[in-house]
């Protein structure tokens, strides 16, 4: 019997979207991220995993300058979006229109479903016309897989939706300003398994149009939704690679120990 050939998945052609080079982050004296180098590709979901306090959320927040708001936080190194520096010399508000974010707990505004989605386009003055705004809202809700469930009550308050619907509303809100990258920080940790499945299915569809980067504590979720996985530990990027490789044959002992539940 011939030896089994190692199954080699055709690797997707990588188009670098966000590139981090020698990124260091300090919170005052605390060195939170140490020399992180990571490339995140267009058309892929990149999962950032690691134990609490490993720096994965800190890294995610560097990607749309959310760390700017934290006092004493200093970011060094280079992060480029399509080759352009985003750490210096770019307006964070403009950057966040290109790099949207979805948070752990759904946080819709206490406004109508319609106004939640229309909020970004209005702020960024994407259109002055009502019919165009309507179209953006409907399309965003459709892309977020929520439209069918709320089409008869767009003027109902967004916070009245179920948890899973609220999270998809937040995704619709992020999509409405036509971002290129969507960052998700534990987007399903407050959701039940069905709502989680819907969000995961949505991520798989969204990655065709957007670059997705997700922080998750669920190993299974990282394995299910991402094409690439990066493992952080104590502020360092220990290993990154194709998700299949990370979960079947990680190179580093630390990665293996973490994903198999040998240390926390």
């Amino acid at each position, binding site marked *: 019997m*011939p030896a089994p050939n190692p199954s080699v998945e055709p690797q997707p052609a990588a188009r670098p979207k966000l590139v981090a080079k020698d990124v260091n982050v300090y919170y005052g004296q605390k060195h939170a991220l140490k020399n992180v180098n990571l490339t995140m590709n267009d058309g892929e979901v990149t999962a950032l995993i690691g134990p609490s306090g490993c720096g994965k959320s800190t890294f995610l927040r560097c990607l749309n300058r959310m760390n700017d708001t934290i006092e004493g936080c200093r970011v060094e190194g280079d992060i480029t979006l399509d080759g352009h520096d985003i750490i210096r010399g770019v307006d964070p508000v403009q950057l966040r229109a290109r790099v949207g974010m979805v948070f752990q707990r759904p946080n819709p505004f206490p406004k109508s479903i319609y106004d939640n989605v229309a909020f970004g386009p209005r702020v960024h003055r994407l259109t002055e016309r009502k019919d165009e705004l309507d179209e953006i809202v409907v399309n965003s809700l459709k892309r977020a897989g929520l439209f069918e469930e709320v089409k008869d009550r767009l003027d109902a308050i967004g916070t009245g939706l179920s948890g899973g619907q609220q999270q998809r509303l937040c995704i619709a809100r992020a999509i409405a300003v036509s971002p290129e990258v969507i960052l998700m920080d534990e987007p399903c940790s407050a959701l039940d398994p069905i709502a989680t499945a819907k969000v995961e299915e949505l991520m798989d569809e969204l990655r065709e149009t957007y670059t997705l980067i997700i922080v998750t504590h669920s190993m299974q979720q990282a394995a299910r939704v991402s094409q690439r996985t990066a493992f952080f530990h104590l502020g360092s990027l220990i290993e990154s690679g194709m998700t299949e490789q990370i979960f079947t044959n990680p190179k580093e002992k630390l990665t293996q120990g973490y994903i198999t539940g040998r240390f926390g």
Partner: protein
Amino acid sequence: MEPHIVKSFDEALNVLHQQVSRMGALAEHQLTLAIEALVSRNDDLAHKIIQADAEIDALEASANEQVLRVLALRAPVADDLRVVITALKVAGDLERIADYAANIAKRALVLNTQPVILPSVRPLQTLGKLVLSLLSEILTAYEEPNPEKALAAWKRDQEVDAQYSSLFRELLTYMMEDPRNITPCSHLLFIAKNIERIGDHATNIAEMAYFLATGNSIEGVRPKNDTSTKA
């Protein structure tokens, strides 16, 4: 490797691996006894071997159940997943090996009703010993697990193929010499084939041992030395 945070997970994996290792020891023992029963023309021993096969079947069924449970409840990844997957496959190979050993015992019973001891029982014993030593090395490689030992034993299967081919020709010669040899020689031929197939299953286990230890499959195609199909 460090223990898991959840201790019962370690226990489940250890129990599974140990049970498959125990199956290996039993299958090896069955083959040892089968060759002994053949050479010593011992009916009692042959009957014992045939009866003992049920125990290995039961161990395989239990290993399968454990694999199913661990996959469903623990969703193992990386090296843990390899422990589970290789246990499933190795248990299957061992069950087949034990089946072949039992079949050798059954044929030994038939051969014992025949008056003549053919000279080719000796080379069959040699083939059996070769496969036994190979199986023993491979089971150690799986138990540890040790990729170097697995690879070394894996490469040795061509010795089995070469011996089997030469035995095949020898038995053909006896059958051509005297038609009365055809019945016993046919059984001996099937026994030789059983032993050769045990070698193939042992090689599969070597591949699993290598995969378990490294996460990679043994590269390239195993060298073949079985020319009996061209005879």
